[in-house]
């Protein structure tokens, strides 16, 4: 069973600590997120959604890494499309958030 061998090998190669620290970061960030978002003004839920959209387009970082590295062209194409999609979200997300927030006036 070649597959079986492979799994055993790779399992041994995993530096387990790293994954735990990633999970740790994820849990903490979620709690911070819940705490901060709970305080967001209810007036601003629509701009909040476009803002978090733009922020989660941080996927742009992963897309750049895939697009710009020394990888086969087919893989870089996938990265390039992902980069385009993320960049669209960043640009339109931040711009429309600002456009909406400008409209909220006290008087």
């Amino acid at each position: 069973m070649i597959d079986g061998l492979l799994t055993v090998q790779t399992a041994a190669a995993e530096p387990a600590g790293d994954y735990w620290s990633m999970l740790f970061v994820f849990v903490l960030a979620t709690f911070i997120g819940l705490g901060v978002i709970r305080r967001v003004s209810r007036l601003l839920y629509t701009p909040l959604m476009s803002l978090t959209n733009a922020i989660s387009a941080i996927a742009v970082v992963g897309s750049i890494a895939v697009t710009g590295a020394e990888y086969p062209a087919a893989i870089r194409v996938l990265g390039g499309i992902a980069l385009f999609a993320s960049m669209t979200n960043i640009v339109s997300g931040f711009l429309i958030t600002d456009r909406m927030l400008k409209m909220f006036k006290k008087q």
Partner: protein
Amino acid sequence: MTYAVAQAAAILATALFIFSLYWMNDPKTARHAVVAGVSGMLVAVLATWFQPEIVHHGWIVLAIVAGFVVGVPLSLVPLTAVPQRTALSHAFGGLAAGLVGAAEYFLGLTEHPAQLTAFRMSAIVAEVILGFLTFTGSLMAAGKLQEVKWIPQRPVTYPGQNVVNIGVLVVAVALGVVVVMHPAAAWSARVFYGIVGLAVLFGVLLIIPIGGADMPTVISILNSYAGLSAVAMGFVLNNKLLVTAGALDGSSGLILSIIMCRAMNRSFTNVLFGAFGTVQKTVAVGEQKAWKQETVEGAAQLLEQASLVVVIPGYGMAVAQAQHKVRELYDQLTKRGITVKFAIHPVAGRMPGHMNVLLAEANIPYTALVEMEEINPDMPQCDVALVIGANDVVNPAARYAKGSPIYGMPIIDADKAKTVLAIKRSKNPGFAGIDNELYVQDNTWMLFGDAKAVIGDLVKQLASGSGIH
């Protein structure tokens, strides 16, 4: 050295993102949020771009330019189209995650099979499933919101729908487990394609039974999925910034989904697996009473004599693009010393906060926008409740009609106002297919017609009669 720079940039960007969300707690500081968000993004992008592994720059520049070319017009859509735009951006976010996940898998498969560890492979599978189901689900949602012709607007339901939906997801996850256990077998790539295909299909199936009134909840859930797919990408690429930013987005979507579900008195599973269309038409409200129609002159008079007017806007106001006329009406009334408040139900419109943005666009000060919980105690003192294109959020049946699909949903107590004026486009019931007894109450007067036209007439009437008063 470059490693340290990248890590420091990630910490700085995370801090800026948290500040960005923090500043959204008040409309006064909210515009700082955009500055912080943009700065964080800039730091993150530059720090990644200047890493030594990045050797090809042409495609990166090209994709960024293309992102601007598409992104700028997308940010200029009319505010009534913001729900569609939001759904579309969730689709883009899901697509990006799905594609990067696929790229990482095939990279591992062809170049370094040893890197496809069980943990990494699980993250890739999660990223691909979440990414692609968010992609097609959000595209469907955007299509429904935009009223694209070949996507049915009405909820589409069939017997066994839930079994089919859950079945598709279960098979996708099961195939995922197979690939995690055998990431580099001769047939693994085909199984991987199968996972992608099922995730794409599941996204479509998930949204087919959803109707317009459920959109605020569904958009929030898709928001959460888009964030989680970014988190999964962070696990795959071992990148903590992706994990934190994705988690912030995911928790935002989660909180909004919970608020939307509560505002409809429904559970997540009920929204996703219990299409509204199936529970229609179980209640017949007593004997049929007749509407009482009011003229524009009469309505204007009622408004003029009021001292507190509460406007209750709904999706009908957005459809009719009536918000600017509403502002004129607001001016006419406040000029006379009448207090005008806007009662905003959390699920009014097609996405969270939709009404607030439309009214703010029409220059109505946000201090006049009041939440449901805050306005309800004041409703008995309200002289005129003016309902504009809202229906289910003011239906008293929600309080007691156990068989009704909206039973238990918190509503704005329009019926407790001294007089109710309701502007409605047609005499048909709302989306849930149930009658609204508010409209046949003794103190309710109906104004039939397009909201924009009716309010325009009211404004004209008030403007011409202002000398008499």
